């Protein structure tokens, strides 16, 4: 029973990841992060990704503007004032950089478009890019949370299934 759960979780995770890669939501940099995760740093990917979400929230102000409604999980509002393009540009650069560092490919691409629009002081373009950015960001956040939840469940299930193995590992 439990064994079947672990295997199914693993299959579900693989499937989700495959979809995300196929959609271009994630790129090979995410794989690179996974390679950096091991026994000495077993939660590396989720730690970095959570830092990314936390840091990115600073870009989003709880001011006016619609929230994205994907599963009701994400609650971000982006500043629509655009009064200070230069400041926005700085934030965008940082967001773009960290997005590429975790392999958030589509988010980064929208940032590039957003930046191009802001450099031209193109308000309409910025608004459009902002909408896209919210959408992509929320989608990414939801999917990655889903992934990490599955991972947690898998670890728990694996622990229940192989208590002896876990013990032996700890003894090392």
């Amino acid at each position, binding site marked *: 029973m439990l064994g079947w759960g672990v295997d199914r979780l693993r299959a579900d995770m693989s499937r989700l990841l495959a979809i995300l890669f196929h959609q271009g939501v994630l790129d090979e*940099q995410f794989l*690179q*992060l996974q*390679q*950096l995760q*091991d026994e000495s*740093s077993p939660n*590396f990917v989720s*730690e*970095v990704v959570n*830092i*990314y979400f936390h*840091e990115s929230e600073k870009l989003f102000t709880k001011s006016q503007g619609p929230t994205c409604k994907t599963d009701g999980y994400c609650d971000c509002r982006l500043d629509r004032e655009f009064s200070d393009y230069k400041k926005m540009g*700085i934030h965008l*650069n*940082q967001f*773009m*950089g*960290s997005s*590429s*560092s*975790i*392999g958030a490919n589509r988010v*980064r*691409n929208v940032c*590039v*478009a957003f930046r*191009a629009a802001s450099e031209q002081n193109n308000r309409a373009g910025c608004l459009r890019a902002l909408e896209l950015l919210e959408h992509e960001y929320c989608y990414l956040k939801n999917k990655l949370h889903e992934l990490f939840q599955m991972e947690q469940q898998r670890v728990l299930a694996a622990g229940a299934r192989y208590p002896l193995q876990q013990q032996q590992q700890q003894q090392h």
Partner: protein
Amino acid sequence: MGSNSVVSNRRMPEKMNCFDLSPNSNSDSEAEEVHVLAVDDSLVDRKVIERLLKISSCKVTAVDSGWRALKLLGLLDDEEEDKSSSSSSDGFEGLKVDLIITDYWMPGMTGYELLKKIKESSSFREIPVVIMSSENVMTRIDRCLEEGAEEFIVKPVKLSDVTRLRDYYMATREIRSAESGINVNKRKLQESFDVSTASSSPSSSSASPPPLFSSPAPCSPSSLDSPTRRPKMTSLDHILI
């Protein structure tokens, strides 16, 4: 080592026979680990570079700004060469690092400005500096290489980039030990010596450790056949909308 000895032999032929004569260089050759100072204002990137370095068996110190980096090195307090250079190799308060890797675009002090400050200091200019940037801007890359950066890596940084850097550093470590030994012992000839060993000029390839790849002029990117200095050239094309 071959290319470096051209300069060294003229000055100190006897010294070249034994690299470990200088007690000062032992402090980092004792520890087999390469100690890297990573500078990046992005917390995400700091975490990633830290992990990349640790997994590559490097010791890491990660800071969030150029100012903090300079402070750690002890470069901010020491005004000029006389005070710092005489004590730099004998163990002063600053952190001893083997390699500095810094983001280019940071608020306050950019990676380029940090690079300049390091290369302007006689006690720190020997430390190799690598610049990282999420953007592949040719003029920016040229500027950094001309100022003496060892390498310019386009982000995101991969494990292969880090292991390559570490291997390069380890391979050229002996040369650096010899150089620092020479710098300490030949104070009088420092001026002319420094001109020939400073790795910031394009023609200095004979005096500095061999670049990562066999291109003779590390500061003229157009002549490089190394793909890694321009890893994202083609992939950026499809990103730009």
